[in-house]
């Protein structure tokens, strides 16, 4: 839990520095986060390759785990439909478009803003940023009460990259492959589903 507070602390410090223009560089001109993400992925790759027992564990994995991305989609859609009951100005397809971001906030918010305007785009950004941060903070807790699959499911499309280290730390390296498969599939689905829900 201490680690989670440190993570949220860094996010808040980043917000404040961005808000008051205290950064020595412009984030729009320099795609720093992309390079940092690559560094993260490289390190995750090293830990996966370094552990020679992973490939043995992979063979013992249950093939039914391949259903997990579908479960994440169905669960997210159901939740997004239920959410409309609590919101006045949001339609079902708007909510589904936001939900279909699956925590992939950068891409989904750009798509949504393009089709539906900045307001829904911002909602998409915020909802999906929240989903990613929630996963970074609470994956261990969700794993404890609802099993390892739930910890992967909440991460949506990010279980392929940014949330992969947290997930493997909280449910074990043997789930790294499931997590990557899950993230990869949802990652691909984001542009299609968001476009679909924005246009129907």
């Amino acid at each position: 839990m201490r680690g989670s507070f440190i993570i949220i602390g860094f996010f808040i410090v980043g917000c404040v520095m961005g808000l008051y223009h205290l950064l020595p560089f412009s984030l729009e001109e320099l795609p720093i986060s992309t390079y940092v993400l690559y560094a993260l992925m490289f390190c995750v790759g090293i830990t996966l390759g370094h552990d020679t027992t992973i490939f043995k564990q992979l063979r013992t994995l249950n093939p039914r785990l391949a259903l997990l991305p579908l479960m994440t989609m169905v669960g997210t859609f159901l939740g997004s439909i239920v959410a409309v009951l609590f919101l006045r100005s949001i339609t079902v397809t708007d909510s589904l478009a936001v939900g279909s971001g699956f925590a992939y906030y950068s891409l989904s918010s750009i798509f949504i803003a393009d089709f539906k305007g900045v307001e829904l785009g911002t909602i998409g950004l915020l909802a999906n940023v929240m989903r990613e941060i929630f996963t970074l903070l609470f994956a261990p807790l969700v794993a404890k009460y609802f099993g390892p699959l739930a910890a992967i499911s909440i991460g949506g499309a990010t279980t392929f990259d940014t949330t992969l280290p947290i997930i493997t730390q909280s449910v074990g390296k043997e789930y790294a492959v499931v997590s990557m498969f899950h993230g990869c599939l949802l990652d691909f689905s984001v542009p299609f589903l968001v476009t679909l829900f924005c246009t129907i």
Partner: protein
Amino acid sequence: MFQIFAVILGGIVLGRLLSRYKLSFIPRLITVIVWVLLFLLGAEVGSNPEVVRGMLTLGRSAFVIFVCAVAGSILMSWLLWLYIKSKTAQQ
């Protein structure tokens, strides 16, 4: 997408080659990189005036959708987990 794949694959190959050595500093390095990423995400949010201005009203809608979507995901993946556990117990 494919670049990320290539980067992970490169890491896996290097990790395999170095499997004789103890690489205990890597998990710590990963933690630090996650901090940097979250800092950058915060900076991105903070330096976008549209997002900052709409934070309260739009944030409420975003929060409701986020909570429901995550709850739905947890429910469905939990059901799959219970199903898989019952099937493996039978075998």
